[in-house]
């Protein structure tokens, strides 16, 4: 097991290293650079000034050389300075990360809490009234556009009823639990409605497949009741494919939800990455994207460990 972990960590390092180059190179391909933005902000800069600035920041060097410089510094723990936020990259990144983890962590938890039992309920009696109702709701959730739903939630709860704030993270000076929690209600509701349908459908499909197996017939032939058949025999078998889907969500947990974050003016990772790319903030975008890559790798590793826990036939050496 420890050997497997070591193996996987080495693999992850290699992937991370390759991804850092790919991302660096892709950003180099983007039109414009930070100096162009400086020029547009300050018409007095001459083209000689611009050339001097490029030389100062090293932007006139070939991309591989720039990359190696960055890599050397990054390995030493220096991730550079965020131009947009005017502070070191980690300091700019961490608050957004904390906001996103809070928002999407709660969303994923709620979505699974509702979706998995709903999917099971639908699968136990496929094509029954319960099943059709659950499917209808699931498809409605999947089909509603997130931005539209977000606007609707704001109109109803913030404009008409006035019970919840329309956006932001916390009121000035308010740091009590409710002061912070009320800012999360609408974005969490919006994202949960969008993702719960998918979880329901996956769980339903996996459960129907599990309930069709021969060992379910054996369990019934033993005299096991419906609860024992579903929870004792089918559930664990059905969860194996669902784990794959949830592990993909884990990456999404940290990359943020751009549209929802934008509509609710929620300063999370999605918005941070978007702003960093649009603002040619190379240092910030690079580290943020690499960080997301790392977390997706960790998500996959956790999925593999979850497989081994669910399915004793899988053992890692």
């Amino acid at each position, binding site marked *: 097991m420890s050997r497997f972990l070591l193996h996987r960590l080495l693999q992850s390092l290699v992937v991370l290293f390759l991804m850092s180059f790919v991302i660096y190179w892709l950003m180099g391909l983007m039109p414009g650079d930070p100096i162009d933005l400086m020029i547009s902000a300050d018409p007095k800069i001459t083209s000689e000034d611009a050339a001097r600035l490029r030389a100062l920041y090293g932007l006139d060097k070939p991309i591989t050389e720039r990359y190696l410089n960055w890599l050397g510094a990054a390995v030493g723990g220096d991730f550079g300075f965020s131009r947009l936020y005017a502070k070191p990259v980690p300091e700019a990144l961490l608050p957004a990360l904390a906001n996103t983890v809070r928002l999407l962590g709660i969303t994923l938890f709620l979505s699974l809490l509702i979706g998995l039992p709903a999917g099971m309920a639908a699968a136990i009696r496929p094509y029954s009234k319960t099943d059709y109702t659950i499917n209808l709701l699931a498809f409605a959730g999947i089909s509603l556009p997130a931005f539209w739903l977000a606007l609707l939630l704001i109109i109803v709860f913030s404009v008409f009823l006035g019970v919840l704030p329309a956006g932001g993270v916390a009121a000035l000076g308010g740091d009590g639990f409710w002061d912070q929690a009320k800012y999360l209600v609408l974005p969490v509701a919006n994202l949960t409605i969008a993702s719960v349908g998918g979880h329901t459908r996956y769980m339903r499909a996996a459960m129907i497949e599990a309930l069709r197996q021969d060992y379910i017939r*054996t369990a019934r032939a033993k*005299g096991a009741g419906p609860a024992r058949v579903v929870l004792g025999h089918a559930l664990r*078998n059905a969860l194996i494919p669902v784990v794959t889907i949830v592990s993909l969500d884990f990456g999404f947990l940290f990359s943020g939800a751009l549209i929802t974050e934008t509509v609710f003016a929620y300063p999370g990772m999605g918005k941070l990455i978007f702003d960093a790319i649009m603002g040619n903030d190379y240092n910030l975008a690079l580290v943020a994207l690499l960080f997301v890559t790392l977390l997706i790798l960790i998500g996959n590793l956790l999925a593999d460990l979850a497989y081994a826990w669910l399915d004793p036939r899988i053992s890692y050496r």
Partner: protein
Amino acid sequence: MSATPLLEIDGLSVSFGAGGREVKAVRGASLGIDKGETVALVGESGSGKSVTALSVLQLLPYPSAWHPQGSIRFAGEELMGAGEARLRDLRGDRIAMIFQEPLTSLNPLHSVERQISEVLLVHKLMGREKARRRTIELLHLVGLAEATERLHALPYEFSGGQQQRIMIAMALANEPDLLIADEPTTAVDVTIQAQLLKLLKDLQAELGMALLLITHDLGIVRRMSERVYVMNAGRIVEQGKVADIFATPRHPHTRRLLAAEPSGRPEPASRDAPEVMAASQLKVWFPVKKGILRRTVDHIKAVDGITLQLRRGHTLGVVGESGSGKSSLGRGLLRLERSQGAIVFNGRDIQGAGFKELRPLRKKMQMVFQDPFGSLSPRLSVGQIVEEGLLVHGLGGDSYQERRATIGRALEEVGLEPDMQSRYPHEFSGGQRQRVSIARALVLKPDFIVLDEPTSALDMSIQAQIVELLRELQRRHDLAYLFISHDLKVVRALAHEVLVMRGGLVVEQGPADEIFTCPKDPYTRALMDAAFEMKADETGVVSL
């Protein structure tokens, strides 16, 4: 029969679906079983025998399955319309069931202990310790003594025969009055089949339970049961004492079943026909890799130095149990598996020949696989399946019409209709699909065909038809077959020479007549006892 039979099924009907889509699987079947009696319910696939068996415990997929009429009484109690709670009390306690596929019938994620003790927990409300002691007792009872140390092992860690023993232990945990065994030995080798049947017979005598045995194999009926019901198209067409039915079958369907066992001998073949395929010291070794660098540390020697020779018009029967390496031998000869040692095909050493050199030869050597369901792509029509080889080799004419005609002729040769080529595999039965597989091989006009257990997944009567077809095609086209099987009964009907394999090595090799009349090796004898007499080996040459 005594006054109140243990189980009495009266005018039972089972339908699937409703209205215009209603499929009547069982139409008014009646049968009875006395205490301690063994009764066989025999019929071909689709005859409704399994559905009848599943109706007793009402394990069918209700509500899409339903009973238009009929009554099922167990010890005088009406089960039709009995509440789910009452049925649960009976299931696994008074009436137990075992199924055809032991691996899929066991929960893959639960340990052996958990699966067996579950029956005790559900019905006897036994504590964990007590249940464990009883589980160990049961494992000993079914002959899995060493399994005591493997209580925590999972189903996949056991062989097919052991898995079925675990199923039996589970079924017998509460000493039921009736055990329903639905094709319990169809998925295992003949040697294991013989052992399992003996086990069931012994346990039945010991526990005094009644046994309802569902099978398509009349050999099993003859060995195991006192009375038999013959089922066809949802109806019981004949019933009576086994001896009477075998001596004087009255219903034409019974007569057909009796005549349907693979029989006869291969057509005599010329001893100096040209050689098609020869191998000397053929080895198929699979590397075992370990560590981060995936270094080869050992080999699994699936085929370990086999020499053989096969002439035109001859069949070489390769016999052995699962895992003996017989399939690897067939695949090795066709260069579908990496091997060492000379392989001479039509006078040319093809060992080491490259992909391009091999390609034109491929049409002359073909293969037919065991599983008629898995080996045909469900997305291609039968015509496309047969056509693919023609297209690869540029045969069968240039135009679509010409190829269609060629395909039609190939289908006709295997006993199918030419216009069936626009249909898809799921529309065919197992036997018909195996005919499609044969047509696919045949359409390329091969000299040599490897037949890898082509009859094992089929009903006895269908096996006989396929054997007949293979014999006829061999005579007509002077084909050489490598016929792989674990069942000596089928091999005897087809093979001129026999090669008995075990653990990658040859146990015995020679003309079929010699081997069948006086087998020299005890292992061959054990295989023959199992195949012809269904006698379990007691000398220990066959392992569990």
